[in-house]
Structure formats: C-alpha cells, structure tokens
C-alpha cells in the first residue's frame, strides 16, 4: 500500500527552509511536491515535451497555416503516378515544401497530419482519462467511504471490468456503434473500460484516509459528509489521482493508436498516429520515414507522459529511499 499523501514526517526534504531574516516560511504540501518535482530532471524533461505537445495540438491550425498544407488536402503534384503514387524526391519527399514528406498515393502532407494527429491523440486520451478519473473517483469514494453493500456492488463491478479483455470488447463495441462522433465515442468507451483502475486506487486510499484521526476530528467538530468528502478526503486524494491520471494518458494514447491501427478508431480523413502507422505498413520498404515518423511521435509522447507520471509519483509520495 502506498504511503498516504501528506504524512508530514515522511516528507523527504525538511518541510521548512529558513528564508532571509530568519523567518521560517511555511509551505503547503502541493508546494513541497512541486519543489521536489522541479529537482527531478527526467520528470521536468517529460513535462517540457508534454507541454510542447499540448501547444502543438492547440496551435495545430497555425502550424499547418505556416506549412501551407491542410492535413486532408490531396497534393497530386507531390507524388509520381507513374511509380504507383510514390512521393517525388528522396526520403518520401522531405524538403522545403513538405517538411516531413508526403503520403504515398494521396500526397497529403505528413507534417500537417502528424500535428493534427497529436490533437486527436491528446483529445481522446485526455478526454478518456477525464471520464475514467471522474467515474473512478466518484465510485471509489462511495465504495470506500460508504462501505457495506455499496462497496460490495462497486467492488464486484470493478472486478468484472478489470477481468474483461477490454481491447477486444472495445473493438467489437466501437465497430458496432453508430459513426456519428468518432472521437467522442472513443472517449466514452475507453474511459468506461478504464475507470475501475482509478476506482480501485481511490477506494483503497479513501478507506485508509477515512480511518485517519483528522477525519474523525472533523466529524467531532460536526462536519457533514459532504464537507468531509470535499474538504478532508479529496485534497488528500488529489495527489494519487493526479499520478494515476498522468500514467493513464499514455496508456490511452496507445489504446487509441491501436484501435485506429486496427481500423476501428478514428476514421479517415481525420488523421491519427495509429491510422498513419497502419497505412504505412504497406510502404515501409519504400518510404521508411512514413512509418518511422508517427511511430516516433507515439514513442516520445508515451515516454514523456510516463517520465512525468513517475516523477509526480515520487514528488507526491516520497518514500525517502530514493526509489
């Protein structure tokens, strides 16, 4: 069981530092965690890349405007129909005109598609994580704090969901459901199958927190259940939830890529990294860059989120043994 967040004697560096003038300045636990995180180089690198990705995703239209090619625009001039649609020029057409080359056959600009692909990846993974975190937190707190039959029902539901071969089920479900809003559908389906991971962590933390004396003390002061949940439990759960959310996002990026790769995720012409990988499979001998670039994007994104998540965990739940 993880050390509960906010046990002051476990805080690794001294909780206070003498400031100028000898006055000892108080820091809240989030402030202390942030200071620890800032000392973690790998986590800060992860945070840097993640921030850059978020900016890229937000400003995707600006980037493609600079580039001059929309991600769905066909560019017959950039490919050679005589050679079966292979991009003109070396390395899949990489050059000043098309910065990362073009797709074979269609001639769509790969840079633009990758940039918009980041948008889709982040939107779906963050959205699905949001769904999973909200469901998991609500059900986890109810199960942990109410206990009894609520715990039994929610606990068994989580067990069932955890034991599901969820990827296979998602493939079936996504293929079956109507096509109206694909990203939204993916967000709901992935989030629904994922909340039990968050739920289990929140439930366990809630049970241990509810036994803590400050919760008892709040009850002794006449605090209502709502007050205890929002003011006593949630602030302490925020750390573990943040960590699990940060580590869930890369998983869902991979899930979205896998679904798109298998053809049941994001539908063309909306670009997605997984879908690009799938398209590139036929061409990897001819244009390796077409295959490598989306793969590299996935790899860097997932790695950065994981580095950040691990760093956050160390910062929020220090063990004092350097692990």
């Amino acid at each position: 069981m993880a050390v509960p967040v906010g046990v002051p004697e476990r805080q690794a560096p001294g909780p206070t530092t003498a400031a100028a003038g000898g006055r000892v300045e108080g820091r809240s636990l989030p402030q202390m965690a942030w200071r620890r995180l800032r000392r973690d180089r790998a986590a800060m690198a992860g945070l840097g890349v993640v921030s850059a990705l978020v900016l890229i995703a937000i400003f995707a239209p600006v980037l493609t405007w600079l580039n001059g090619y929309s991600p769905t625009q066909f560019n017959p001039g950039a490919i050679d129909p005589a050679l079966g649609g292979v991009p003109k020029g070396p390395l899949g057409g990489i050059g000043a005109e098309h910065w990362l080359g073009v797709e074979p056959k269609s001639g769509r600009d790969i840079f633009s598609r990758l940039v918009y692909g980041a948008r889709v990846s982040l939107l779906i993974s963050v959205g699905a994580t949001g769904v999973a975190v909200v469901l998991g937190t609500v059900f986890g707190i109810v199960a942990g704090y109410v206990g009894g039959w609520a715990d039994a029902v929610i606990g068994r539901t989580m067990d069932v969901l955890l034991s599901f071969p969820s990827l296979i089920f998602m493939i079936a479900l996504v293929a079956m459901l109507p096509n109206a809003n694909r990203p939204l559908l993916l967000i709901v389906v992935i989030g629904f199958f994922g909340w039990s991971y968050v739920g289990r962590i929140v439930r366990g933390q809630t049970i241990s927190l509810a036994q803590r004396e400050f919760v008892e003390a709040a009850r002794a002061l006449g605090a209502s259940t709502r007050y205890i949940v929002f003011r006593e439990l949630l602030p302490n759960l925020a750390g573990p939830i943040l960590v699990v959310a940060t580590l869930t996002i890369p998983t869902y990026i991979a899930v979205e890529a896998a679904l798109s790769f298998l053809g049941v995720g994001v539908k063309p012409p909306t670009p997605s990294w997984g879908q690009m990988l799938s398209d590139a499979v036929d061409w990897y001998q001819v244009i390796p860059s077409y295959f490598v670039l989306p793969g590299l994007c996935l790899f860097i994104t997932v790695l950065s989120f994981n580095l950040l998540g691990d760093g956050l965990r160390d910062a929020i739940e220090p063990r004092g043994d350097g692990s």
Partner: protein
Amino acid sequence: MTSLLEVEDLRVRFSTEDGVVRAVDGVSFEVDRGQTLGIVGESGSGKSVTSLAIMGLLRGRFTVEGSVTLGGDELVRADPDFVRELRGNRMAMIFQDPLSSLHPYYTVGNQIIEAYRLHTGATKRVARKRAVDLLGRVGIPQPEGRIDDYPHQFSGGMRQRVMIAMALACDPELLIADEPTTALDVTVQAQILNLIADLQEEFGTAVILITHDLGVVAGVADEALVMYAGRPVEHGTLRQVFYEPRHPYTWGLLSSVTRLDREPEHRLRPISGNPPSLIDVPSGCPFHPRCPYRMLPEPCSTEVPEYAPVNGGHLVACHLSEQERTETFARDILPRVQSSVRKGG
C-alpha cells in the same frame, strides 16, 4: 437543577463475526458545568467507546441503549443531523494524537476558521479574528504570525493546543478529552492539563477526561469513574476514589502507579492477568478472575455485584462487605500507596 450532561444506563454493543461485543455495559454519570470527570480504566475498558457514544461518533454495526442528555436534549435517540449540529458547537472532543488530528493540507488558522464558521456562519474576517484570539488564549506565542502555518510546523504540544483552540472555537458546553496527553512528553502533559483546567475555569465548560493515567486524573479531575470490562466499578469524588478506594480493581490501579517520591521498597505491583475479552465477559463480577480478594465460588463468580453507594455519592460494585473493604484497604493497600496520590503528573 439537573446537570449539563446526564448519562443514564448507557449500553453499547457491537456485533462482530465472533459475537456480540459489550463495549459499554450500563454506565451512568453526570457532569455539570465547570466540573471535570475523569474516566479511568485499562485499554478496552470501554472508556473511549463511552465518549464516542456521547458524541454520536460510533461507526460500524453497533447498538446504543440508555440515555444521554445534554442540557435537556436527548442524544441517543435523536436524529443524527441534530447530533451533528451539536458536535463542535455545544460539545467538542480532542483526541489522543494531535499530529494526525490536524489536516496536513490546511493551515491551522484555516482549520480553526472552518470549525468556527461551520456552526456560526461568521464571515471569514470575524472567524479569523476569533482564530487569532483562540490561538493566543491556548498559549501559542505570536498567534498573528503563526495562524498561517501548517500543522507540521508545530511541535506536538503546540498542535494539541491548536486542537484545543479548534474544540473551543464555538464555546462548547461539554469538552471530551480522550487521552489528550498520551502522545506528549511529561512536561508538556502538565502544561496541556493546566491549560484545560484554566480554560475550563474561564469558559465554565464541563470536561470529561479519559485516561489510563491516574496521575492525570488526580491532577485535574473533580470526580473519578473507574471502568472495567465496559462496566463502572467505582465512582466518587477524587478524594473518595484516591483516599478511600473501595474496589479491588482501583486498589490494583493505585498500587501499580510508578512513584518518584518514595523509596522503591516494593517492585511495582501490576494487576495479574489480562483484561477480559468483551465478547466473553467472565460471569459474576467481571474482575473476579484477577481479583486477589475474590470469594469463590460464590458470590463473585456467579452474581453480578450491585453497583451501590457506600457513603454519599461514592458508588462501588463489589461483593466484599464494607467492613472487609475498609479493613483490607487499611491493611494491604494503604501502606503501598501512602502519600501517593497528591502527585498529579
């Protein structure tokens, strides 16, 4: 006039997989404004459960019987929301471990302010002023400067002072202190007990002090209630319980207190055996298996002794006759505990 708090034949049972735990079995007492009642007993004697039952803070599968009235309001059968309104407002509690009783995420000022606003609906400004005032009253130096500090920046004794400030935020009529000094070192213990006594005088609060430390009770209580296996065994004024104790269990407790002001001519005399399981309480007098003065087989192992007055308000539950008790105490116990009780610390 009736007392502020009246507890009448309180019984608390928990149903567990192993059977029914009779955690509290027929406890009655009264505490009035400005009075301090010390409840003494070993671990598992039901003293904490008694206080939690009064506060309505019991959790799990339990049943409470009997009656608890605070200022005329019945609490045992009352609506939980009604009792919640009273908590922190008319009755408050401080706990054993001041470190874990404060929320690590909020500044101490914030926590006192919340406690005050919860019941009074005061504005933040007013509540903050009140918090500074309270911190000063409980002896925190420079309260304006410390109000925005976090709990980990305070020492154990200071944290307990903060807890007391929180508990007193709404001027409660009743304060229950559950082993308030157990986690503190001895010098700080004395300070905290003096603080509680001073504040009690100032606010006229009724105090229930729960402890296993007889010295603590001797220091601050007006009356003492000794509990064993969920039952009251002796109850009287401080003087009665410490100078004329009538129950063999109380004798045992007094004999096992460490003494600094006396030659160590005896080893400490612990009470032999262990406290009984509350699922399987011994028949008759629950203390009889450990009692050196028991009369076997009858009546000690067969009949529950009557909890009866010996003189005035002094109540004892023991089968020994008053004469036997007086003689035994004078012969066996008094020499061991002489001058032992004025210590209080």
